[in-house]
């Protein structure tokens, strides 16, 4: 026979594993072979070739659509072996557009009518996977016959194909539905399982059509002991109860029975899910379900924990008490090592109206939630956030939660997002305005950091504000007296930025008489009004006690004084040589430069210029600068001279770096200087040994507090300053922290390749957005606590 030397599939696989040529060349050689063989008239050769091709297509992604006709040929063979190969190829590669699809109709019909149940099964499987409208229409009589077959094997498979047939050819329902329903009463559990499976799918698509069968399903619910069947029936009832609420009452009882009696966790979970999603009005059932959820949550099995949280998040919107009851478990889950569990817990918290939750539970819990949410979301520069508008409003909402003590973190994130995510700026400005205008916020000490961020954001991104006038009103309102001076200073500076922006658009609108390009149009009256409001608001501050506030207030007032004249003038002339105009343009220019985040490693990336020796002993400097510097070796108190500070600071830093990197001093660092310094500043100098018995055992950078206090006036190497170099811990206005690669916009992120768990969170957050509409409304109204 021709195929004696043909490589079979097994040979192909073996060859693949032993090949030395490289995968792709092996595959292309095999393909060539297959193309030759498949054209042979001998069906055995053809089918073997087809078999190999199917394998390559499934496992190695080789296209096999060109072999469609050959598949049809192979399937027509009388031999079971060939038929199987043919059907497998067809099932795998045919689709609605395959041109030869209709050619298999007759063959299918023949096989469906076959005596051999395995041939029937082959045909049915093929139909269930690739059935088209025409095929379904032509073969539904056969399916109808098979549904009543005496062999349960066949009936089972016929049931499996029904779904596809109904889907593609709805008229088949008229023919086959009755038989399907008859099968509901079968005693064969596998057929029953198949039938309810079909009904489950049908109910998902169209619950009302299956409603009349509710009594049958009810019977099964009560009587069956097969878990698979019960699970499907429960799913059916979940769908039916949503269209027919009275059903809920009837099924609640049996479901509770199952929940209590069964040991199968899958069934318990399905019961719980059904209850909390569709029977949420039945108190007793819900109580039992929540109890079961509680059991799941404390199990060690992470799967059960995950599913428990999932069920809880379904229950949460209507049954907040369920979450409160299990709150320790939920909070524990937030820090679970399993990312799924963590995300599910986070999702749960986000989907709820957190305001309500915190109102009813203790402050500690609230803050725990808030800090967890903040840290998870901000990880890796907000990797998981897709919708920044929603996240920004969430930050605003968190601010409003009573007992919120996470002001600094929120503040940091507001500014960070402003710098990193351009698209979020309009929303940021909106949220900030809502926070600023609210007088109640000003009274809350914990929220001051957030307000400072809000004001900075409003000033910096004023071009996105819908109404700068309102912004100014918020920033100069009388109650801002409650703010500490350094925040007040930020407010005033933001007012300045807003003023510059408004004046700029006013002047440019004047110049180009054909409508202004900016979104905000200013008339003479409105700009004058704005300026007056600012003047009135800021004027009292020009006599403030705090120098910074005073200075900034005076800056603003001075600017206004100059601008006022020109505003008046501007009404008449198109004179762009007016001083105010130029100054405004200049200031606008200054403010328009975008401030971006700076990496903590930025300094390291700056190359040391040639000729600058950082590690050399600076003792030689003595000769050069000796007249300016006090001698280093003396035991006298080092002066606070600027130069000496910087030089010795340089030395100290260099030594710190040298010593902290290894226990043995690197060759370049001068041990003599080290010893000198130690002599002079003994207690302030950090030991290079981490296990130094002298240290307090605290791994931090700061010397013990008591020692500090006595030396603080004398020592220019103030620990606070040292701390800044070490940690760059940001102060109020945060501009210097974070990663180097600036995340431009959320849309620019492309993460199509790897799907992380976190992405699913973003979907969860997106869906939670719908729930959070309530929060948005509240925030838009602004004043509400």
């Amino acid at each position, binding site marked *: 026979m021709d195929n004696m030397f043909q490589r079979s599939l097994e*040979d192909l696989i073996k060859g693949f594993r032993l090949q030395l040529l490289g995968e792709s060349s092996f595959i292309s050689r095999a393909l060539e072979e297959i193309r030759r063989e498949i054209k042979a008239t001998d069906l055995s050769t053809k089918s073997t070739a087809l078999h190999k091709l199917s394998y390559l297509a499934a496992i190695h992604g080789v*296209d096999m659509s060109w072999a469609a006709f050959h598949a049809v040929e192979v399937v027509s063979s009388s031999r*079971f072996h060939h038929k199987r190969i043919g059907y497998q190829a067809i099932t795998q590669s045919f689709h609605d557009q395959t041109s030869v699809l209709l050619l298999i109709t007759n063959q299918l019909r023949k096989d469906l009518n076959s005596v051999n149940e395995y041939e029937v099964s082959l045909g*049915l499987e093929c139909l269930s996977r690739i059935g088209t409208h025409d095929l379904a229409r032509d073969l539904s009589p056969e399916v109808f016959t098979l549904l009543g077959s005496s062999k349960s094997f066949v009936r089972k498979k016929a049931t499996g194909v029904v779904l596809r047939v109904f889907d593609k050819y709805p008229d088949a329902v008229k023919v086959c539905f009755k038989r399907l329903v008859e099968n509901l009463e079968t005693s064969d559990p596998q057929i029953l399982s198949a039938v309810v499976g079909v009904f489950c799918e049908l109910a998902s698509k169209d619950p009302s059509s299956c409603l009349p069968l509710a009594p049958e399903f009810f019977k099964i619910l009560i009587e069956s002991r097969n878990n698979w069947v019960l*699970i499907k029936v429960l799913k059916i009832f979940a769908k039916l109860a949503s269209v027919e609420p009275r059903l809920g009452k009837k099924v609640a009882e049996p479901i509770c029975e199952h929940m209590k009696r069964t040991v199968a966790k899958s069934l318990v979970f399905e019961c719980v899910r059904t209850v909390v999603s569709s029977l949420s009005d039945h108190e007793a059932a819900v109580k039992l379900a929540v109890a079961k959820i509680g059991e799941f949550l404390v199990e060690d099995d992470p799967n059960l924990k995950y599913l428990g949280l999932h069920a809880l998040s379904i229950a949460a919107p209507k049954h907040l008490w369920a979450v409160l009851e299990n709150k320790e478990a939920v909070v524990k889950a937030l820090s679970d090592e399993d990312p799924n569990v963590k995300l599910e817990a986070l999702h749960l918290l986000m989907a709820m109206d957190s305001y309500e939750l915190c109102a009813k539970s203790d402050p500690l819990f609230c803050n725990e939630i808030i800090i967890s949410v903040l840290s998870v979301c901000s990880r890796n520069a907000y990797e998981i956030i897709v919708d920044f508008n929603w996240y920004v409003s969430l930050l605003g909402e968190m601010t409003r939660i009573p007992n919120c003590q996470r002001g600094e973190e929120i503040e940091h994130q507001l500014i960070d997002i402003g710098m990193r995510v351009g698209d979020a700026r309009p929303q940021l400005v909106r949220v900030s305005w809502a926070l600023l205008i609210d007088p109640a916020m000003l009274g809350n000490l914990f929220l001051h950091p957030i307000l400072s961020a809000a004001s900075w954001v409003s000033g910096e991104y004023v071009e996105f504000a819908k109404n700068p006038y309102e912004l100014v009103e918020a920033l100069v309102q009388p109650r801002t007296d409650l703010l500490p001076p350094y925040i007040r200073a930020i407010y005033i500076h933001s007012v300045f930025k807003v003023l510059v922006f408004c004046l700029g658009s006013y002047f440019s609108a004047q110049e180009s008489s054909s409508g202004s390009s900016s979104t905000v149009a200013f008339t003479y009256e409105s700009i004058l009004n704005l300026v007056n409001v600012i003047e009135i608001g800021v004027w009292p501050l020009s006599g403030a006690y705090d120098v910074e506030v005073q200075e900034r207030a005076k800056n603003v007032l001075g600017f206004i004084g100059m601008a006022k004249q020109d505003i008046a003038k501007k009404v008449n002339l198109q004179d762009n040589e007016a001083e105010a105009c130029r100054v405004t343009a200049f200031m606008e220019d200054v403010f328009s430069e975008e401030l971006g985040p700076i990496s903590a490693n930025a300094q390291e990336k700056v190359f040391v210029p040639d000729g600058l020796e950082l590690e050399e002993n600076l003792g030689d400097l003595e000769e050069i600068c000796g007249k300016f510097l006090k001698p280093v070796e003396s035991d006298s108190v080092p002066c606070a001279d600027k130069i000496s500070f910087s030089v010795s600071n340089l030395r100290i830093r260099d030594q710190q770096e040298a010593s902290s990197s290894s226990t043995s001093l690197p060759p370049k660092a001068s041990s003599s200087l080290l010893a000198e310094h130690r002599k002079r500043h003994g207690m302030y100098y950090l030991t290079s040994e981490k296990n130094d018995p002298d240290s307090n055992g605290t791994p931090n950078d700061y010397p013990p507090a008591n020692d500090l206090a006595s030396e603080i006036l004398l020592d220019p190497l103030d620990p606070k300053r040292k701390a800044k170099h070490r940690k760059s811990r940001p102060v109020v206005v945060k501009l210097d922290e974070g990663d180097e690669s600036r995340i431009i916009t959320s849309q620019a992120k492309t993460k199509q390749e*790897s799907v992380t768990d976190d992405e*699913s969170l973003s979907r969860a957050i997106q869906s939670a957005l719908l729930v959070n509409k309530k929060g948005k409304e509240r925030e838009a109204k602004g004043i509400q606590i």
Partner: protein
Amino acid sequence: MIKAVMMMNTQGKPRLAKFYDFLPVEKQQELIRGVFSVLSSRPENVSNFLEIDSLFGPDSRLVYKHYATLYFVLVFDGSENELAMLDLIQVLVETLDKCFSNVCELDIVFNYSKLHTVLDEIVFGGQVLETRTDEVMKAVEEISKLEAASNSISLVPKSVSGWRGGR
């Protein structure tokens, strides 16, 4: 409904990939790679579920089990129970075990057809049809007998066909 069944080894090589909705082969390979990249980054002792909406569309869930060098993956939608799907993987593995006695990855590599036979008895057109191992075995044995019978109808003497390695 079950959307896909996959088996891949810990290096990402697929050993079985069956998709119950038609997808062009490139898309199939893409999905396999996508699933592998998610799975390979999962630590041990965590839950066996994944949300993979971005790969398979909305309402898709994935359950996987890691046995030695193989990942068994089932992708399904909301009409299947998660824990039941986990059980199904168990059923599949047990059946394979009975089929090949102490199944290992190589058995799966070299018995591509038989693997499909087993799977087709359990999952049919995306529906779970059979969960009893012995029933599946019965059917698989019958089919193998039929195949062997039809295969040996040839003019080639038996000794030679034996040499050809009719498995």
